[in-house]
């Protein structure tokens, strides 16, 4: 039996929303993450990912339920827990702009009481591995946002935590930096059986590439939890069909009304006026109906292809809509 590293029991958190409404950011969340695991939280904007991470890192109190990290209760034993965790939120750059990269890391190492010799060794090692040693003496406010992000990530490792929380660590990074960063983090967990990583992301591919297990979260609820493989296997009988459509800019959400269509996601290329529809079907026979429906609406189907199911397809099948759409919805709310 591997040791449990994170456990939540009916974890619930509500916020006061605008004009006396209440927002259920987390709704009876139960997850168990083992030591040595890379665990992903996947979900659209406003799903509750950051809220869960804040509770687990002692920054926010739950409204109901309990949570344990590294064997400590996140509320009752918060101060004991903090030595063993760290948090990196992508897109934020804690530290002092006027200090150099190295000085900032030294400062943060002192919040964990690291003796100078150990702090210096770690800082050097982190700067080498995350490839910003050349900026060691550059003031933070002069760094590009990608390097700030590396510095922020390095900060997360400064206390060599047992459990590391990464909230959208690759947000805004270029492809190559994001790839390096993922590799670095993966190695860190793989090389030590006592480490655990919980990361949130909106990027399906990131979750798929990195995570041992993924929880899909939507509107505060865990809607699925498994390895990326078995989540996809559950879709095996089902098929995802990719249709490229040119013409009218209509929305095809109503295709869901066809029995046999489990979910639809739509994305639009503004330049070419081509929409890509991903239609998740129970059975391929429904595809011809779908195509004729699209033609009736005045659009033209220019290609049809079957794809391997991805985590995004899992998401579509569970929530009935694609990621981009949920986001469009939550931003127009």
């Amino acid at each position, binding site marked *: 039996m591997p040791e449990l590293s994170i456990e939540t029991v009916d974890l619930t958190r509500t*916020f*006061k929303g605008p004009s006396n409404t209440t927002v259920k950011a987390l709704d009876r969340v139960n997850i168990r993450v083992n030591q040595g695991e890379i665990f992903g939280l996947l979900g659209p904007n406003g799903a509750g990912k950051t*809220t869960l991470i*804040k509770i687990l*890192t*002692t*920054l*926010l*109190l739950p409204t109901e339920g309990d949570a344990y990290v590294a064997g400590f209760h996140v509320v009752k034993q918060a*101060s004991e827990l*903090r*030595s063993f*965790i*760290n*948090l990196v*939120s992508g897109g*934020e*750059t*804690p*530290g*002092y702009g*006027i*200090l150099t990269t190295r*000085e900032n890391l*030294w*400062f*943060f190492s*002192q*919040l*964990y*009481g*690291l*003796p100078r010799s*150990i702090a210096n*060794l*770690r800082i050097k*090692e982190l700067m080498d*591995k995350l490839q910003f040693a050349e900026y060691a003496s550059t003031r933070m406010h002069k760094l590009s946002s990608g390097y700030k992000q590396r510095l922020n990530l390095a*900060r997360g*490792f400064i206390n*060599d935590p047992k459990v590391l929380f990464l909230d959208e660590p690759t947000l805004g990074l270029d492809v190559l930096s994001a790839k390096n960063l993922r590799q*670095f983090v993966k*190695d*860190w967990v793989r*090389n*030590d059986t006592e*480490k655990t990583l919980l990361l949130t992301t909106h990027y399906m591919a990131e979750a798929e590439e990195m995570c041992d297990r993924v929880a899909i979260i939507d509107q505060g609820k865990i809607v699925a939890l498994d390895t990326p493989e078995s989540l996809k296997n559950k879709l095996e009988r089902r098929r995802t069909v990719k249709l490229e459509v040119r013409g009218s800019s209509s929305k095809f959400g109503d295709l869901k009304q066809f029995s046999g269509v489990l979910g639809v996601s739509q994305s639009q290329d503004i330049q070419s006026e081509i929409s890509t529809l991903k239609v998740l079907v129970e059975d391929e026979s429904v595809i011809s109906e779908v195509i004729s429906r699209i033609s009736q609406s005045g659009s033209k189907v220019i290609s049809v292809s079957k794809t391997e199911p991805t985590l995004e397809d899992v998401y579509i099948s569970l929530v009935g809509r694609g990621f981009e759409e949920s986001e469009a919805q939550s931003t127009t709310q």
Partner: protein
Amino acid sequence: MAEVLRKVKPKAQPSEISRNLRAAYARAWVRVKATKKEPLWAIAEITIPLISVGAYVFLYRALNAPPSFASFVVIGGTVIAFWANVLWNMSAQFYWEKETGNLEMYFVAPISTMAVLLGMALGGIINTSTRALSILIIGSYVFQAPLHLSDPIAALIVFILTIISLYALGMLFASLFMLYGREAWHTANLLQEPVYFFSGFFFPITGNRFFPFAIQVAASLIPLTVGLDAIRRVLVLGAGLNQIPLHVLGLVAFVSVLLPLSKKGLDFMERLAKKEGRLTLRWQ
């Protein structure tokens, strides 16, 4: 990576006290370091108070006031440096720290936020002391303000007590303003002028005919007033500690009330912030 990190593991987790002391030291270090990198600021912070000191000195001279008035004013200008530092770099500080995400990092780390506040205060005292001393020396020389240094120990004790009580007040403000956004900044602004006035930076408050007794009592609830008055009595009027026992007692009382109060305020605000989700600016 991990192999190396394992090699550089400390033998044991650092103790709670050592963690907090290191954190306080590091926070103070950031302050001192930042000032060294912006030397122009320090010069401005010496020059500007000297100018207002000069204005009052000339005013008193025009009124044919005794030369000791110049000394009063120079001491006022010296202590003003600390008060400005307390307001701007203590009270409103957590607002900036929240904006950068630092506040969350303090709360995630295994330290007490009191250590951070203490570090901020310490760094502020170190930074401001050099400035204040420059104001005192330059001011008393340029404006020919006579100072008594017959009892340097008394001067030092009163001075240290004043500074500690000022920064203790700053720590209290910082914790109370932790949850505020820009309002903290406005409040600091709001507090600056009236306190200059009532604490008597540029004219003596107690024992004079201008202020009614009630206002004198109210003003002495500000540690600044008491401290300033005590320093002036020692440095200008040549008083010893035995002549100002109430001042000393008052300052000790301020410190012993303000420090625990700011710890309480901090705990309360921390809990409130975690309850309401107000540690970041994102949702404000």
